[in-house]
């Protein structure tokens, strides 16, 4: 398998998964249980992505500049700072911590 095969097969698989969602009958989600579960799945995925994006490098758990940066973002969102500013602040904090050599 060449890199091109991998790129194209992976892309087709991901596109097919997207289309699959539109082929499921809408009434499947009309029950309170299904609706609640779908909402919670979104919450769980976002929370899991935060953990993975913040704490992992490949298969290793790493505590580096991302951790204080993302925690700062949590505080900023709690203070209702606009999205773009909070995300930018997280990047700046991580960059500065690394520049100063205070965090990896």
């Amino acid at each position, binding site marked *: 398998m060449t890199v091109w095969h991998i790129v194209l097969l992976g892309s087709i698989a991901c596109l097919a*998964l997207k289309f699959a969602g539109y082929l499921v009958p809408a009434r499947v*989600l009309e029950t309170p249980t299904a609706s609640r579960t779908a*909402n919670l799945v979104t919450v769980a995925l976002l929370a899991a992505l935060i953990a993975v994006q913040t704490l992992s490098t490949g298969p290793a758990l790493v505590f580096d500049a991302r951790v204080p940066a993302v925690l700062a973002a949590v505080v900023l969102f709690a203070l209702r700072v606009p999205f773009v500013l909070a995300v930018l602040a997280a990047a700046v904090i991580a960059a500065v911590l690394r520049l100063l050599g205070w965090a990896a």
Partner: protein
Amino acid sequence: MAGPASPEAGTPERAATRSAVAVGVATAAYGISFGALSVASGLDIWQTSVLSLLMFSGGSQFAIIGVLASGGAGAGASAIAGAALLGARNTLYGIRVKPIIGGGFWRKVAAAWLTIDESTAVSTAQPTLGSQRRGFWVTGLIVFVGWNLTTLIGALLGDALGDVRQYGLDAAAGAAFVGLLWPRLRALQPVAVAVVAAVVAAVLVPVLPPGLPVLVAALVAVVVGLLDLLGKREPVLEPPVPEEETA
């Protein structure tokens, strides 16, 4: 959902557009780091751009280049599987968003293409059908155009940019997801699910292949949702109303 708490909030459609632009621009900017990391992982500029055009799902794209970076083309099967597993959540998003989209075949094809974390999250956070529709398309289109442009820029910068971590772009990704999650944490049940899912995913990172910890963590939500653990008597229906619009 992510805009400032302004008293002159305007119509739900305008609020949706504001959220969509904020989320879209922030997410699109992160494409720079994807482009740069992809080239650093051994893909060329064309392969990098095709991923952003066709796959168009950040998590899956990072998963596939991550596996290729460590395993090369020999790890192709697990790279594809990782991307697909991480992309499976877009199926759930499609089920959620389909009733909002409406329209005919081609509109659904376009919508499916643009169905990602951000477009779904902004859309389902809006209070009315019109604003949900507006939120989906504006977010999806801004992210699509921006993500592909910044992917190309990032790939071209590539080596010149050096270590994207130096600019804190890896931390920005986590922070962006915090911003998407925050408006959903309005009750005990989602807070509990979020905490457990995050812990489960982190614990599983060293154990499972890339992409899988996130999907296993989603099972937490399925169990809690089906059994309605920690829920109120009456089911809490979506969408989570953005704070600035209830204030």
